């Protein structure tokens, strides 16, 4: 009977069949104590913990197959090349890209955006042109475009957000014009959790023949991505936020764009032939991968995506949505807590301020209860300015979090208010 009614620890588990305790066993880092308390890891938007499958893939690569790629006169190099290129194909399938030539390995989403800025931007953006971003962007999707605008005499146009944290789409439509060369907008806000209407954003831009870059760093860990359905021109994400290793990320670009774009960095691997008179660049995607890549990182990221696919991206989305609703209710019940970012569609991010208690103090007190959160501006200072707060506390949830952990969070927030606020 008790299983039918469900316990207070797992609301909705019956509907999803999500065995979170079993899944947690796949993540060794979750099983530790900090300051004498069990770790409650709620800083997933900063970086996620890694499943054993990813750690094993890295170990296996370095233990058995380590060699440089694309130089294969010996067996280890062939194995390393196969593993690296299989990883590329795994990522192609994950994103449903048309071809592996559209998958470029980079360090992280930040580098992917900088690549598009340097290659697409410096070639196709000129004086008087415009780049459209939104008020929700992470600094990684603001600063590269500011640098480009300064260099080219172009200007940055910013789609505003309303008080809930939703983009004001009428304003967006009005910003698109004959001088707009690129729209670069996030799919999920890292600071507020807002899920933007990215399909509509892309459709409106394409009506004016404007290409769109989607910052998918916060979307990729939480939902299925289909770049063909989105019809985006570029999609970027980071491995380390998607349960994969640090130092590896992906730029997806439509082949037609990548073909037109010049290389980003020069070096080995990105060339076909070099003389002092002339260099012939390599084919896609190698044209954009100068130097020895992060081979182990690519393999580890593929293992992470394999792991996510095994759990089911749609089930991950559903579980995290239940957690978000549960956490929202719990925090709203804590006196003095105000959620910042209450968009109609949200990913599992709870950004909040506590009356009379600075976010930094909340962060320290939570840490003492084992609860890891981020306290600060979340590399999105314009978002903080828009909502008139210097900083928020951000609990960002992942597939392995539990309703019980959210109850610990709410308890610790109450305690912070008792200690400092009283």
């Amino acid at each position: 009977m008790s299983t039918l009614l469900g316990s207070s620890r797992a609301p909705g588990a019956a509907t999803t069949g999500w065995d979170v305790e079993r899944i947690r066993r796949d993540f060794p880092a979750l099983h530790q104590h900090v300051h004498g308390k069990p770790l409650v890891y709620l800083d997933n938007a900063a970086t996620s913990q890694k499943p054993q499958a990813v750690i094993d893939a890295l170990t296996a690569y370095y233990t058995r197959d380590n060699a440089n790629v694309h130089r294969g006169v010996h067996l280890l190099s062939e194995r390393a090349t196969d593993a690296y290129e299989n990883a590329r194909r795994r990522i192609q399938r994950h994103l449903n890209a048309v071809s592996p030539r559209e998958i470029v390995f980079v360090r992280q989403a930040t580098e992917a955006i900088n690549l598009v800025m340097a290659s697409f931007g410096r070639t196709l953006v000129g004086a008087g042109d415009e780049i459209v971003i939104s008020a929700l962007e992470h600094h990684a999707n603001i600063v590269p475009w500011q640098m480009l605008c300064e260099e080219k005499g172009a200007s940055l146009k910013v789609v505003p957000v309303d008080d809930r944290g939703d983009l004001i789409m009428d304003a967006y439509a009005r910003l698109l014009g004959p001088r707009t060369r690129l729209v670069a907008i996030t799919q999920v806000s890292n600071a507020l959790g807002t899920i933007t209407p990215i399909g509509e954003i892309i459709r409106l831009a394409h009506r004016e023949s404007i290409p769109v870059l989607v910052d998918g760093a916060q979307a990729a860990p939480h939902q299925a991505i289909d770049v063909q359905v989105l019809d985006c021109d570029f999609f970027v994400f980071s491995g380390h936020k998607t349960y994969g290793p640090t130092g590896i990320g992906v730029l997806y670009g439509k082949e037609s764009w990548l073909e037109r774009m010049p290389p980003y960095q020069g070096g080995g691997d990105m060339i076909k032939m070099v003389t002092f008179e002339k260099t012939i660049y390599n084919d896609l995607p190698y044209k954009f991968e100068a130097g020895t890549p992060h081979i182990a990182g690519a393999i580890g990221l593929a293992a992470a995506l394999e792991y996510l696919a095994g759990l089911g991206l749609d089930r991950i989305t559903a579980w995290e949505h239940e957690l978000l609703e549960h956490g929202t209710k719990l925090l709203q019940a804590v006196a003095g807590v105000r959620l910042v970012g209450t968009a109609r569609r949200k990913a599992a991010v709870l950004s909040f301020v506590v009356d009379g208690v600075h976010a930094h103090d909340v962060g320290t007190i939570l840490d003492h209860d084992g609860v890891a959160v981020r306290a600060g501006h979340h590399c999105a200072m314009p978002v903080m300015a828009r909502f008139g707060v210097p900083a928020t506390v951000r609990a960002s949830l992942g597939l392995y979090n539990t309703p019980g952990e959210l109850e610990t969070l709410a308890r610790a927030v109450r305690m912070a208010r008792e200690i400092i606020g009283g």
Partner: protein
Amino acid sequence: MTDLRDLYQQVILDHNRKPRNFRVLESANRTAEGYNPLCGDQMKLYLDVEDGMIKDAAFQGKGCAISKASASLMTAAVIGKPVDEAEALFRRVHAMLTGDATASRDTSNDGDGLGKLAVFAGVREFPSRIKCASLPWHTLRAALSGAREAVTTE
């Protein structure tokens, strides 16, 4: 294991709730701004310095309990002190916060003789919070040296 009470001592909590000298100082002839980009703490420090003496000190700004209490206790400590004594106090507080006894030869790093300022000795067990406590002091130093750029902790 560190204890939260080592960090959030009663004196600190009291100065956070009721910061002393928390106002604009109209008579100020030295000012400086301090900023911690990691957490968004911002403060403006006002000093009235005459004949090598800090006649008055005040501050304004937004910050966490540690930075606010630190600014509050610092202003209270330096009012009426000669500038060189305030500079010496900066070195001693800095050594106490970082646990670095070599920072100044005449310094012990356990907060002895620092009076109320010794309540910040517990901060060094919380590495992510040391900059919160030291920001007002760096800002004081900038104001005394007439720096024009805002002080940042990064």
